[in-house]
């Protein structure tokens, strides 16, 4: 795709305005106006495409991956959003069950009573936010350090899980999740603008 010519919108707007004024004063044919409009549209569409291509403006939130583990520590959902450290099935299963036990041990080590396990783990290159439902299903997301609104995202994922997984007659409890509707809605939820929206 050609790089967009850098012309400010104000300049473009003025160009179109001038064209209209010229047309009104009969100094310019309608064909010339159409030509100007076509150029305008072309430039405009290029600049919009450029935004999409960069992936920063409309792309994913800063999420690396999402896990759901059942109450006995088995991984029932793993989705990687294009991180460099993508794991194969065996590794993701191991990581999930390790997290399950670490979560339990952290409750034992609490200096005061009523501990519900790790909510946020801050590593050198990522943050891990974890949400545990009352039934013991754990949802955790691996994201960029300092990413915002992740608690809300996890609660929303839980909502999607209750809707599109638990209400699906073909889903067997505690088994890996293979539900098309869940996938579709989840993909929408992790879009950056949606995550920010959830934070409100």
């Amino acid at each position, binding site marked *: 795709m050609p790089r967009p010519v850098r012309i400010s919108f104000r300049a473009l707007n003025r160009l179109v305005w001038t064209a209209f004024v010229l047309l009104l004063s009969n100094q310019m044919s309608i064909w010339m106006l159409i030509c100007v409009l076509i150029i305008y549209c072309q430039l405009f569409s290029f600049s919009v495409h450029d935004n999409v291509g960069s992936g920063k403006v409309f792309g994913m939130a800063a999420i690396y991956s999402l896990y759901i583990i059942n109450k006995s520590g088995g991984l029932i959902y793993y989705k990687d959003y294009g991180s460099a450290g993508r794991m194969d099935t065996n590794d993701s299963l191991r990581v999930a069950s390790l997290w399950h036990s670490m979560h339990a041990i952290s409750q034992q080590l609490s200096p*005061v009573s*009523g501990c519900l396990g790790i909510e946020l783990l801050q590593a050198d290159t990522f943050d891990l936010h974890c949400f*545990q439902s009352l039934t013991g299903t754990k949802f955790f997301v691996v994201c960029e350090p300092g990413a915002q609104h992740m608690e809300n995202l996890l609660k929303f994922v839980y909502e999607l899980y209750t809707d599109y997984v638990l209400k699906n007659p073909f889903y067997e409890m505690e088994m890996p999740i293979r539900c098309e509707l869940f996938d579709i809605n989840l993909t929408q939820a992790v879009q950056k603008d949606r995550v920010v929206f959830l934070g409100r």
Partner: protein
Amino acid sequence: MQFFGGSEISPSPPAPAASGNNGHMMYVFNRNGVCLLYREWNRPLRTLDAQQDHKLMFGLLFSLKSLTAKMDPTSAAEKGNLGMPQLPGQGCSFHSFRTNTYKLSFMESPSGIKIILVTHPRTGDLRESLKRIYNLYVDYVVKNPLYTPGSPIRCELFNTTLDQYVRGIA
């Protein structure tokens, strides 16, 4: 039927007091997993005896470190099997985790000394403070001619300075 997550729904601990008294406890481990120092300031709940507690804490740190090293989403390099021992400074480590009742801050020195500080969940970033504590360790323990490396720390001066410092930060 077993319910997970205890009897209460997310009991939040009292807000942190203005100063002092928010530090719960501190551990220092050497690279062999020997607990060199355990200080305790405020710990109402104790589920295990001291030795079991130290072992469990070291195990948690070891496993969490291998977990973060394996998970590291920014590096595509082959990371080996999960649970493979990592040398100090090797692989992606972590510096803190938070539960609803406490926050644990963790630091590992290049020689494998691990400093763990457990504080109120709402304390901020303690990375700098842990470095200061490491500094205290170097000053009052390592430079102490009567201290044998690898043995439990029994330096009165270190303990008092540490107590004072922790009261100042948390």
